[in-house]
């Protein structure tokens, strides 16, 4: 007994684990996988690992985690599959409401609603997780694949998100976010950062979505005024899947063939990305397009910096059917669609007296990228051509945003 205790102490020392009694619970596919997995998730103690062996787990009810500091893991992104094909209850495949949970090496397929929703936590890691609707793009698919919301210290690393009818990877109303090394395909929005603060989105591959990467901010919800978002070293190419979002959802407005769209938000830096082969537009910077009575909401993008990106072709087959963006741009440009578009919409005093210097959009070196914006004052006045395509007028010195650092407790 003494020896055993000594050994376990040694083990704890070696593992540098705060949770010396941490255990691993192994689960294999069985007759009633729901009860087995859900009981393990409820009875787990902080530090425990719940391990799902390779195989197909067919679940009729949604799973949930509400214990801090546990790990739910499988044997691989294609080996351990939680299938919700025959789901009868629950609005998600898996939901997480506790802090510092790690999800790794498994897949969630064909959830009736969202695949994995994480709400109101501090610390969540998705590592090598796949969320997929396996029948391809369809408005019958669930809204979000990876869906952390109202959370802090969010890490999404080496994940795959396919087929979501809203966004494959969606981070909403959160703070301190890293989305990296991930693949988003055949979603309406590949990766979407919405109403969030401090996000780094890098080394991702967004392809065959309707829009590759979106940075949005919406009114009338608890957290708004998204800011400090860096989007860099990503590939956002060939996002030419027709918009299949059910109407009513904001991404339903995104035209097919959008590389990156910034809507509202402040302090956004888009750099070193490869963006091309997008039917409508490579980068668009736009104002929130609806009336709102929300007094705390600022609908215009501010302090947007775009530099060092490499552009392939775009605008050669614009989607004039979806939303207003492509239609307006097509008319303004006479069909000569730019790589980068800013709608130029400002609050009235700024239209007249000019925009504060620190709010201005700044274009750095983007090779031979073309640019188009609208001069709002000329737009209001008669006899002026409001279209402005002079890139140099908007070029300036880049002030890099600081990188995101996740809390060390992860």
């Amino acid at each position: 007994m003494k020896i055993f205790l000594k050994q376990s102490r040694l083990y704890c020392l070696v593992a540098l684990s705060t949770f010396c009694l941490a255990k691993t619970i192994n689960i294999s596919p069985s007759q009633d996988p729901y009860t087995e997995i859900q009981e393990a998730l409820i009875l787990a103690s902080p530090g425990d690992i719940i391990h799902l062996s390779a195989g197909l787990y067919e679940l009729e009810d949604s799973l949930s985690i509400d214990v801090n500091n546990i790990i739910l893991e499988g044997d691989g992104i294609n080996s351990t599959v939680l299938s919700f094909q025959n789901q009868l209850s629950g609005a998600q495949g898996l939901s997480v409401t506790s802090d510092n949970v790690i999800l790794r090496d498994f897949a969630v397929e064909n959830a009736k609603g969202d695949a994995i929703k994480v709400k109101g936590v501090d610390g969540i890691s998705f590592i090598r997780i796949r969320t997929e609707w396996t029948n391809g793009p369809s408005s019958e698919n669930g809204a979000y694949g990876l869906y952390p919301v109202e959370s802090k210290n969010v890490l999404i690393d080496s994940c795959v998100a396919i087929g979501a009818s809203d966004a494959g990877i969606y981070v909403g109303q959160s703070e301190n976010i890293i989305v990296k090394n991930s693949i988003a395909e055949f979603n309406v929005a590949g990766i979407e950062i919405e109403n969030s603060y401090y996000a780094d989105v890098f080394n991702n591959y967004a392809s065959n979505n309707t829009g590759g990467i979106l940075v949005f901010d919406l009114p009338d919800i608890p957290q708004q005024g998204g800011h400090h978002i860096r989007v860099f070293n990503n590939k956002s190419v060939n996002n030419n899947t027709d918009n299949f979002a059910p109407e009513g959802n904001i991404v339903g407005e995104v035209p097919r063939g959008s590389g990156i769209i910034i809507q509202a938000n402040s302090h956004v830096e888009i750099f070193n990305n490869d963006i091309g082969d997008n039917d409508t537009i490579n980068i668009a910077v736009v104002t929130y397009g609806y009336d709102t009575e929300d007094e705390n909401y600022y609908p215009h993008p501010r302090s947007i910096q775009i530099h060092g990106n490499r552009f392939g072709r775009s605008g050669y087959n614009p989607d004039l059917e979806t939303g207003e963006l492509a239609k307006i741009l097509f008319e303004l440009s006479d069909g000569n669609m730019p790589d980068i578009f800013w709608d130029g919409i400002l609050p009235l005093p700024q239209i007249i007296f000019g925009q504060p210097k620190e709010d201005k959009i700044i274009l750095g070196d983007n090779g031979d990228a073309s640019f188009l914006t609208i001069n709002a004052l000329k737009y209001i006045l008669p006899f002026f051509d409001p279209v402005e395509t002079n890139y140099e007028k908007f070029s300036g010195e880049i002030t890099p945003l600081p990188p995101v650092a996740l809390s060390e407790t992860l």
Partner: protein
Amino acid sequence: MKLYNSLILIAFAISALSITAEVNHSKILSEDVALKLSDYGFFNNLTKQIPADGVLPYDLNSALFSDYADKLRFVYVPEEGFAEYRPNKVFNFPVGSVLIKTFAYLNDSPESDLSTQLLETRLLIRRDEGWKNVSYIWNEEQTDAYKSIAGKTISTQFVNDYGGVQDVRYRVPNINQCKECHQSNETITPIGPKARNLNKDTSYADGTMNQLLKWHQQGWIKENISIKSMVDWSDINENLETRARSYLDINCGHCHIEGGSADTTGLYLNYAENREVHLGYFKKPIAAGRASNNLKYSIVPGKPDESILLYRMQSLDPGIMMPESGRALQHVEAVDLLRKWIHQL
């Protein structure tokens, strides 16, 4: 024969004991919840749900819909206990209090061929550190109920209000799912027993009385709580607006409230909410996905069939339906009520 007689005697002794059952206060406060419902001594007759001394039945003006299950509610407040009134919130029950709710299909109409089926009994136990939730699932024999962890699916039948037999896949929620509705700003809280929802008569062993008066008589709450009462949403003599808002409050307002599980949406359906956009009028959905059904707004005044809220109340698809859990059937009568309400907005 002798053995048989003594068995009967023992059985008698046990039932005699159970008649004088007392609530087991130490069990309520012990760190580990009891493994079976009978351990607490809340009932003189468990199967018939006859409460022990000190345990009072209560009822709500408007109740949460749970697949047409009948609900038998009881409250236990320890001796000398006092529950502080808080406007728009549930009473602040003293430590040691327990809210007891048995879900059942009573099937008690005279023409019913089905017998009473007790499904589960949920407890909210007020501890030092806050409320603790636990549910007990009834055994087939209906003699006791046992602690649930991952919940249970009970596929059964019940007799509805129109005398028809209806199938239902009743889900006993798991412990985490309880929190979905009962969590407000990170802590577990009861939903029903707010003064505004308790202000009605109930029949007690010693006669019928207003619940708030009864609770005051027990010394549990102060006198003269002035409130705007909710109404019974099904009472056609009440005003339509109040009925609809009462229904939305008790069925939706625990999640759709600032600090609740659904606050990410900005749609707030609690009784006290009065900002039109947050009540859903011409409010665009945030994360509804296909649950929007190609509709643009949560509520379009005057147009129930263009309102996402009504669509989601009618759906049985887990990816669309509201509430997200606790419902496998459509609440036909409530859909009708809210249709009328939206129509006249």
